[in-house]
């Protein structure tokens, strides 16, 4: 008798294919939507021949960088949320909730205000990554792994409060009120007015972070059985933790320093996709990256809905969608207990 032992069921293959197609579609939609509508045929024509100069600028210098950043940052947030949840064995771990995004923003703000930014634009993501790195290390020291949800959330509140207080202090000390105004809007999270330079700035760090995070998938599966059992199976916890901390710092730190704080994506996406991956924390990682990219592209499209009051901030849109979802999670936990 031969029983099929395939660990990934067919459902999951379709999930990957489906998410890929949806993300590509949303990417194309993001290229065509805006004050000037560009049809797919028009986009193709613009790519092939560059006669219509103003429209080329719209496509290549405004919409393409924006869509690319949305996909990159969304994938980073989905991926790092799923990875942190697998490592900390807690479904509420997410870069925003546990303070990593806040510390990354603080790092970027410090670089901006100390005048270090004048030495090179790449110092901004460096500041973001340093902040994110310190936050993950601090969180790990405070909450440990597999500690209860309560400890994790408390640690997150503490880290978020420190980051928020220090960021406010930096805004207080700002020499010009306009700079403070800029920072305030940047903190709310946005993809507007980003150029291809921004994409190139975050791309190397983001890709390196992704590789590090994705290299832990098999170990995360084993970690579902608890740390002792995972270690007895040959998982090197030290190596998994190191990759996770550095990977999160690189990807989230650089993303936040370019796009500001965008919350809830890392919470929402893994939670929806987890049952579709047989609850395997490792298998959840790549699909969460795809789902995150898709969600971020949709949220960015929503910000372009003309409301007559200027553009909505991306962080505001994800929070408006994410916060009710968070409340839903709370109710679910309350009913379960």
């Amino acid at each position, binding site marked *: 008798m031969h029983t099929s*032992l395939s660990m990934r069921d067919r459902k999951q293959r379709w999930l990957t294919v489906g998410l890929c197609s949806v993300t590509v579609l949303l990417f194309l939609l993001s290229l065509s939507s805006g004050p000037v509508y560009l049809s797919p045929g028009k986009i193709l024509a613009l790519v092939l021949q560059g006669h219509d100069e103003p429209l080329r600028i719209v496509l290549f210098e405004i919409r393409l960088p924006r869509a690319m950043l949305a996909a990159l940052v969304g994938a980073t947030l989905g991926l790092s949320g799923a990875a942190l949840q697998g490592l900390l*064995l807690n479904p509420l771990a997410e870069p925003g909730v546990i303070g990593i995004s806040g510390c990354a923003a603080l790092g970027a703000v410090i670089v901006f205000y100390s005048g270090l930014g004048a030495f090179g634009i790449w110092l901004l993501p460096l500041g973001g990554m340093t902040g994110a790195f310190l936050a993950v290390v601090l969180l790990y020291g405070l909450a440990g792994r597999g500690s209860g949800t309560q400890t994790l959330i408390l640690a997150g509140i503490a880290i978020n409060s420190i980051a928020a207080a220090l960021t406010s202090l930096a805004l207080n000390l700002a020499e010009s009120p306009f700079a403070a105004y800029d920072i305030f809007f940047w903190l709310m999270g946005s993809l507007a007015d980003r150029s291809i330079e921004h994409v190139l700035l975050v791309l190397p760090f983001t890709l390196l972070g992704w590789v590090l995070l994705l290299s832990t998938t*098999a170990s995360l599966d084993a970690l*579902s059985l608890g740390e002792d*059992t995972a270690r007895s*199976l*040959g998982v090197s916890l030290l190596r998994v933790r190191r990759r996770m901390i550095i990977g999160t710092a690189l990807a989230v730190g650089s993303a936040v320093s370019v796009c500001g704080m965008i919350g809830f994506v890392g919470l929402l996406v893994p939670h929806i996709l987890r049952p579709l991956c047989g609850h395997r924390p490792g298998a959840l990682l790549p699909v969460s990256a795809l789902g995150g990219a898709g969600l971020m592209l949709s949220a960015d499209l929503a910000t372009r809905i003309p409301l007559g009051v200027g553009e909505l901030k991306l962080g505001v849109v994800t929070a408006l969608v994410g916060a009710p979802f968070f409340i839903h999670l709370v109710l679910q936990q309350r009913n379960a207990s």
Partner: protein
Amino acid sequence: MKLLTASAVSLRYGDTSILEGVSLDVSRGECIGLIGPNGAGKTSLLRLLAGLTLPTAGLISLTGIDESEGETQAGAGRVGYHAQSPEMHWPLPVKVIVALGRFPYAGSVDRLTPYDEQAVLNACRLMEIEHLLDRRSSTLSGGELARVHMARLLASEPTLILADEPVANLDPRHQTGILSALRRHAELSGATVVVLHDLALAARFCTRLVMMKDGRVLADGSPEAVLSTTRLEACFDVDESYRRYSGIQAVLTAADCHPASPPAEEDALS
């Protein structure tokens, strides 16, 4: 042939001494039962043997077990460890849990060779969980879950099995099923060290018993020799009024009459 030797091993956390100069060797073919009251240090000793904690003093060597290379745990796969009340953090499908037993060889449950799959299926057959392969762990009963974890352990095809109370909360039929599997493993493929609270089961399935109390080994030898009335009285604090009973009966009767006294042997009553 000796598989594992622990010589004069001690474990301390600050001022608290958990284990004091424990020596133990495990030879091929042995099914060793670790017995003793709660807090005797059985679990700590097993974790030391599994390489999960380092001893404060003393030495543990895995002889006759090839040590795997690289950064992984020494002997991963060759030494199988079953934790006391195994953790389950996500409701994984049963087949994934059992397949994780092949992690030391395959590196991932997505890359199982036909041999790996066969080992997984054999373990499932032995533990009678073939019909549960696609179920999620959160939908299983306590007994089913215990068998799933045991199948995970057996799927690793370890040489040495270290199992911490694998039959707690199981009905008699499945207690017998798991313990005979552990005994058979010792006879055919290596050795077993198992922590047990049920003295009758320990006497029935183990070839050798190690009796522990307060971090020390009180007795080490054949079940008949270790489970003598005097030793049991010393180990489980049975007072003189139970002298008319002998052996295990004295321990059980004493526990019966003092339900509030050390919550030692509630398992033995079931």
